[in-house]
């Protein structure tokens, strides 16, 4: 390839059509920016979150963890010859009261500072000036990390600072802020272990023991030797971080796949723009071919153009992506709407390898987009092209590649998840999309073959349209493919989001039957410290206007060390079929057995199908429970179980409660009841209230925020599809300029020329819309019935929002035809008349 020639011709072409190539450049840049920014946000947030976990947990060789187990285990463990250091820890999730009266979620770590320091240096208490250097032994002293200091403005560690109040049950306990700790992440408070055990009603209890082993110790033998009590598990180094990663993995992968869709549509725009550019430059290619440029060189020339376009677009995209990620991290705090990284404001972390990969993806997408036009440039016959005679496409395009891809896509949709992710389902979606697009040439060929033959067609305009489409099948195919690809993606996303939203909405109706809800803790992990007494609940039931009251208790249960906790909900359960959104009728209760109802995630993650037995590590010990039914839960992705409160209280002896559902008498103001309930508490802030309407509104708002990126992608896909249609039709119209000129000489008016082009476009866009709709519906089935359950472990019913789908189709149809008419209007003007003077 002659680079001087390439530079001359490429730069001239780009300078000649700056907007068109600018649009392709922008499409690649946007695709790369979106994919790269999503990746950066996810990886930065995950790295920060993992780092926070690492600093808070330290770097032990092994951790023995469980739910408040007896600290007698510590003596045994510390005495084992294989253990070099054993550090006992009590973890308490609770609330601190800020100076302005707010409740701030904090994690209290009760440690033996001297033992913890070698394993978790970030937890070493640093007394402020004026404090004794051994103040960390003071059971009343507490040390705050930066996030806690920031969240609890005013709780600065000064000698005369006010006490810090932490919620312990239905009241508060006061501690003195004596210094700081270096641990990162969410608000963490470090205090002496004995003090924490005493203050938080956990005397003789531990949450975990971090171990440093004597070098050469066999971990498995050690675990066997320790004979850990039920409910305590040994967790190897890195598992906690793995658990953090697993927490958001499906969400991150889904976002990344969606972002890659943007790159796919970017590739399509490159295809459209380069196709048009090649069509326009056919005479130039033909002339250069005559002058000695080989077919291979013509192909390489077009591909080199695409590579340059991709490289420039990628460079812009990487810069834009980094800027977007930095802004999103600052504004959304790494959350991206998913709610997986609360309280984390991670700094942007850019990796060289990741940057290179996303840059290469941008270039690759441009090359993929340019592959077909490059082949067209390669295959043109210079002599024929110079005469304007082209070469007819006589052979029928093979249908088997597209059909094979569709079959593979359909088959892949039935495969199970790989490594817990719906990778096969994503492959199915890609295969369906590419298969559908690959099948278009054969379908277009079949459609044209089925059309009446020339002799039968008496009118000049239908004959011209049909014969041209037959002669230049590839151009028609390109226009249809643009419509199919963009519409299929939009239809699939529309159906998936609508199905999910309707599902969530119906589910909210089922799970929010009461008028007013109150809760003591925002999460199940804090439910052990922020709770309500049975006495308080009994008094609430007496509040005027309250006709019915249901109180429930939440408990986090660690069923697997490498998975996030599941939530155990104990509540009155007199009629499970009416009280829970069950998927099937409940199995009958068996005498002598504890029955539970599990969410769908429990079935996917723990195999807890209806009828099976599951071991529950309750505070009182491990209890086997029979699964009586499966219910739909869109709130807890990692699993939840519902148990009758009578069973739970009998098994655990735990009478504490967390959530209240209040049904009010008609005409009772919710605000009045809220006020009455608050008056019953020592601190009004101990309860959070929300009406069912507020909860519903908030849930749907969170849902819409989570799916905001899909709306953006739909808009981008449709916009790029329309630009693609415009470019394809422009290429067609351009190639037919002389034909229009001739038709003007033969007596066709400009309006007739525009009408014939608009009519043709309408026929092709309609065919594309129909195929795009069908393909989109097929892809939506995979998204709804495979990708979602495999990603998030919940199912939903298929909802087809026909009004929106038809509006989408109509918009594409109108936009396609209008674009074609505009192109034809320009092409059928005086320039067309003059074009008959040009050599073909």
């Amino acid at each position, binding site marked *: 390839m002659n680079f001087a020639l390439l530079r001359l011709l490429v730069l001239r072409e780009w300078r000649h059509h700056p907007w068109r190539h600018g649009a392709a450049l922008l499409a690649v840049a946007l695709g790369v920016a979106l994919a790269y920014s999503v990746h950066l946000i996810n990886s930065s947030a995950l790295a920060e979150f993992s780092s926070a976990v690492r600093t808070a947990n330290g770097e032990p060789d092994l951790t023995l963890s469980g739910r408040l187990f007896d600290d007698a285990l510590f003596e045994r463990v510390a005495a084992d010859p294989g253990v070099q250091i054993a550090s006992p820890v009590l973890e308490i999730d609770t609330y601190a009261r800020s100076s302005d009266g707010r409740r701030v979620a904090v994690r209290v770590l009760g440690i033996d500072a001297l033992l913890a320091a070698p394993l978790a240096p970030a937890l070493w208490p640093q007394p402020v000036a004026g404090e004794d250097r051994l103040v960390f032994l003071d059971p009343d002293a507490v040390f705050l990390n930066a996030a806690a200091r920031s969240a609890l403005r005013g709780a600065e560690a000064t000698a005369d600072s006010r006490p810090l109040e932490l919620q312990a049950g239905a009241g508060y306990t006061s501690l003195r802020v004596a210094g700081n700790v270096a641990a990162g992440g969410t608000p963490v408070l470090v205090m002496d272990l004995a003090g924490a055990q005493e203050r938080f009603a956990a005397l003789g209890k531990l949450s975990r023991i971090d171990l440093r082993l004597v070098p050469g110790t066999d971990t498995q033998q050690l675990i066997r030797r320790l004979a850990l009590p039920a409910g305590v598990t040994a967790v190897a180094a890195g598992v906690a971080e793995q658990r953090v990663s697993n927490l958001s993995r499906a969400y991150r992968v889904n976002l990344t796949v969606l972002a890659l869709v943007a790159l796919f549509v970017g590739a399509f725009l490159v295809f459209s723009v380069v196709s048009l550019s090649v069509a326009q430059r056919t005479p130039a290619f033909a002339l250069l071919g005559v002058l000695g440029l080989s077919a291979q060189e013509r192909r390489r020339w077009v591909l080199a153009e695409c590579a340059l376009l991709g490289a420039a677009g990628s460079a812009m995209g990487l810069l834009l992506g980094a800027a977007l990620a930095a802004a999103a991290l600052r504004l959304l705090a790494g959350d991206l709407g998913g709610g997986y990284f609360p309280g984390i404001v991670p700094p942007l972390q850019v990796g060289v390898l990741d940057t290179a990969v996303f840059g290469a993806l941008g270039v690759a997408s441009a090359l993929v987009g340019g592959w077909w036009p490059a082949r067209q440039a390669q295959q043109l016959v210079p002599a*024929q092209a110079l005469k*304007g*005679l*082209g*070469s*007819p496409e006589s052979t029928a395009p093979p249908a088997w590649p597209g059909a094979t891809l569709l079959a593979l896509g359909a088959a892949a949709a039935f495969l199970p998840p790989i490594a817990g992710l719906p990778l096969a389902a994503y492959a199915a979606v890609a295969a369906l999309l590419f298969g559908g697009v690959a099948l278009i040439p054969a379908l277009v060929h079949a459609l044209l073959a089925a059309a009446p033959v*020339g*002799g039968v067609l*008496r*009118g*000049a305009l239908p*004959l*011209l349209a049909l*014969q*041209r489409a*037959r*002669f*230049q099948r590839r151009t028609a195919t390109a226009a249809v493919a643009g419509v199919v690809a963009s519409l299929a993606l939009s239809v699939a996303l529309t159906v998936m989001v609508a199905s999910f939203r309707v599902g969530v909405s119906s589910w909210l109706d089922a799970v929010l039957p009461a008028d007013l809800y109150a809760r003591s803790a925002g999460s199940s992990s804090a439910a052990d410290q922020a709770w309500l007494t049975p006495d308080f609940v009994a008094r609430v039931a007496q509040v005027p206007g309250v006709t019915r009251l249901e109180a429930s208790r939440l408990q986090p249960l660690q069923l697997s060390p490498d998975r996030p906790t599941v939530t155990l909900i104990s509540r009155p359960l007199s009629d499970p079929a009416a009280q829970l959104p069950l998927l099937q009728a409940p199995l009958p209760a068996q005498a002598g057995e504890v029955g539970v109802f599990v969410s769908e995630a429990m079935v996917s993650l723990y195999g807890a199908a209806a009828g099976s037995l599951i071991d529950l590590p309750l505070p009182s010990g491990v209890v086997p429970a029979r699964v009586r039914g499966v219910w739909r839960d869109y709130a807890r992705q990692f699993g939840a179980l519902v148990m009758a409160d009578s069973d739970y209280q009998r098994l655990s002896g735990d009478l504490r409660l967390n959530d209240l559902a209040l049904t009010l008498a008609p005409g009772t103001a919710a605000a009045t009841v809220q006020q009455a309930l608050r008056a019953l508490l020592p601190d009004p802030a101990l309860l959070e209230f929300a009406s069912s309407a507020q909860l519903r509104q908030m849930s749907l708002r969170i849902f819409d925020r989570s799916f905001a990126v899909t709306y953006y992608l739909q808009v981008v896909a449709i916009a790029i599809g329309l630009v693609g249609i415009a470019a394809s039709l422009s290429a067609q119209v351009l190639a037919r300029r*002389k*034909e229009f*000129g*001739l038709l*003007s*000489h*033969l*007596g*066709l*008016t*400009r*309006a*007739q020329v525009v009408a014939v082009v608009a009519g043709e476009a309408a026929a092709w866009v309609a065919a594309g819309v129909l195929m795009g709709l069908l393909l989109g519906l097929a892809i939506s089935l995979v998204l709804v019935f495979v990708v979602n359950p495999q990603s998030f472990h919940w199912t939903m019913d298929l909802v087809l929002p026909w009004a929106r789908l038809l509006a989408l189709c109509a918009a594409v149809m109108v936009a396609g035809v209008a674009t074609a008419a505009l192109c034809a209007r320009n092409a059928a003007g*005086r320039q067309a*008349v003059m074009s*008959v*003077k*040009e*050599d*073909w």
Partner: protein
Amino acid sequence: MLQLKNLHKHYGPSPIFQGVSLRVARGEFVALLGESGVGKSTLLNCIAGLDEADGGQVLIDGVALSGLDDVARARLRRVQLGFVFQAFHVLPHLTVAQNVGLPLRLLNRLDDTRVAQVLDAVGLGELGARLPAQLSGGQLQRVAIARAVVHAPGLILADEPTGNLDPTTADKVMAVLRRQVQEAGAACVLVTHSAAAASAADRVLRLTPLGIEDAAPQPAA
């Protein structure tokens, strides 16, 4: 059939031609010579109603083009005019027969017999089913001539029809054009640089910036 009255045309301030007056009767074959850039093709476009003259009148079969709107002009072209171009302009995606039948289809008068008859007349009777890519330049121009006469127009406008052909083929094509014009009883205005082509005409005129003047027939080169 064709009457031009004091036609003139400018591009910007520069006159292309002015004071062009001409009458061409049915059955008459007029050749129009002129230097490059003198406006021969522009004059043909003005005659066809595809370009507007800045002054003067064009009358075809007594109908003044200036009184017609775009649609009426298009209809008039469809019925009354036939075109032959230097670059053939046959549509590559239509067969030879479909190309020739195009004017009849536009008039909703498709007549396969007539198409076959005209193709026979131009010596392409056997090639109706072929695509243009399979024809030589001379054959393509004969297709264009057949298309120009198939609907029996009153006026044929030929713009350098032999410009892309070798002398022998050009002679044959001109003979075909001459014969077809005669048989159709149409008027023909032939724009050409070629003295040989002009020699087939009944009358040879020269277009200059100042108007049209008679030109003595040149000996064939």
